[in-house]
């Protein structure tokens, strides 16, 4: 409040809802935005466009973003598992936008049958589902630390060094760059 913002944009989750109510009561314009899946991007762009007086530009962006979630996915030619944490192993499930990015890029998420955005699984489940790629959000060019761990060598993709290291700025959250992220992922899978 001390910075006197014209608008406060908050991610619509838990404590932010209370914070938004308090800010509104104090007279600070506040908006809560759902930004979990690709289909949330278009509505978010329209809301922000309307609130910042740039509705027309926002609409053209929103049409492009709507098409990301709406376009029919290509046939999957390969499979992957997104590993977001190694001990305990936490993977991305169907509820995450990363699952959508993989589908749109032509890859099958081997944990697409888990409805939640992310879930703890056993290492043996990853080994048994045998993804062709292990996708990791990382800005580094070197394989993740767990690649050196003996137990992870039971996963064939780890043993054979098939990692997709995806930069956080492109893949870390759904946003206007998601279209580019899909194209990047598709290009990497085709290599």
């Amino acid at each position: 409040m001390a910075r006197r913002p014209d608008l406060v944009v908050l991610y619509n989750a838990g404590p932010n809802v209370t914070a938004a109510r308090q800010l509104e009561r104090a007279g600070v314009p506040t908006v809560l935005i759902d930004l979990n899946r690709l289909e949330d991007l278009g509505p978010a762009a329209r809301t922000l466009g309307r609130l910042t007086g740039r509705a027309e530009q926002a609409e053209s962006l929103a049409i492009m973003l709507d098409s990301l979630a709406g376009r029919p996915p290509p046939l999957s030619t390969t499979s992957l598992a997104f590993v977001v944490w190694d001990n305990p192993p936490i993977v991305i499930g169907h509820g995450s936008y990363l699952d959508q990015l993989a589908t749109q890029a032509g890859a099958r998420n081997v944990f697409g049958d888990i409805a939640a955005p992310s879930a703890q699984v056993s290492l043996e489940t990853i080994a048994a589902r045998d993804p062709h790629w292990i996708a990791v959000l990382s800005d580094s060019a070197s394989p993740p630390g767990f690649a050196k761990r003996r137990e992870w060598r039971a996963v064939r993709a780890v043993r054979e060094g098939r990692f997709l290291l995806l930069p956080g700025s492109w893949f870390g959250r759904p946003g206007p760059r998601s279209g580019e992220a899909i194209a990047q992922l598709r290009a990497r899978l085709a290599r």
Partner: protein
Amino acid sequence: MRWTLLAALSVLALVLSVVLGPAAVPLGELLHSDIVWNLRAPRALLAFLVGGSLGVAGASLQALVRNPLADPFLLGLSGGAGLGAVVAIALHLSGPWSLPIAAFIGALAALGLVYRLGLIGGASLDPRILLLGGVAIGAFAAAITTAIVSLADAAELRNAFLWLWGGLSGASWDSVLLVALYAPIPLAVLLAASRPLDLLALGEESASYLGADVERVKRRVYLAASLLTAAAVAVSGVIGFVGLVVPHIARLTWGHRHRSLLPAAFLGGGALLAFADTLARTVVAPRELPVGVVTALIGVPVFAMLLRRWTIA
């Protein structure tokens, strides 16, 4: 007969851990499966060793502080281990063993501080101060851990809590070998202290009259039980209830004599954790439950039954 039953239960828990899992491995292929040899077998053995260590550490500490609520993690070790792990992540220490080593160092630092506090009244180690010091050091370490996590940008730090909640996902033949080489030393120290621990139940003064070197026993038992717990937390995080509940269940059958109680607590703790881990891996497959959740789900009702029994008695 009761030893045969406990041994059979231990073997059954280990066999189930190896045979059952979220991945379908046909029985005929069990002996040739990579999943069984490289993942399930070391995980089952590590679960057994960690559960056994926590059982023995819990039984010894309950005797040392003469408090049935004493738990291996009550003495500040979990807080210290957590702080060590979070500092390792915040400093971006790499290497497959950086997290367990940092957690072990954190637990040892907490052990040292609590031990020093235990001696605050003079040369005699005061079990009541050990308990209070453990709670205070644990809370202090947890507060620093929370401060680091809340100030950090990295999502990795938030995930460090998942590691701390306990689990055996990091099990490998390396970690089994490490615990198998390390644990026998503190286990032997505790087993050797069986008789003095029996005497301590009569009170320090009586134990002393009956020939126990009370001060030496207290120091040895505290250090050995803590070192055992520190190793367990380093390889598997904080797995609650095993060290609290198993000694009480073992006492119901084997009584208060530590020469029998400690081996029974080892086998019982090992069997409980191996069994709990099998449940954690299979009941919601392909997802996995944190094993600490399963041990709590088993441990709390058992503990409630024990409390009821004591209250009635």
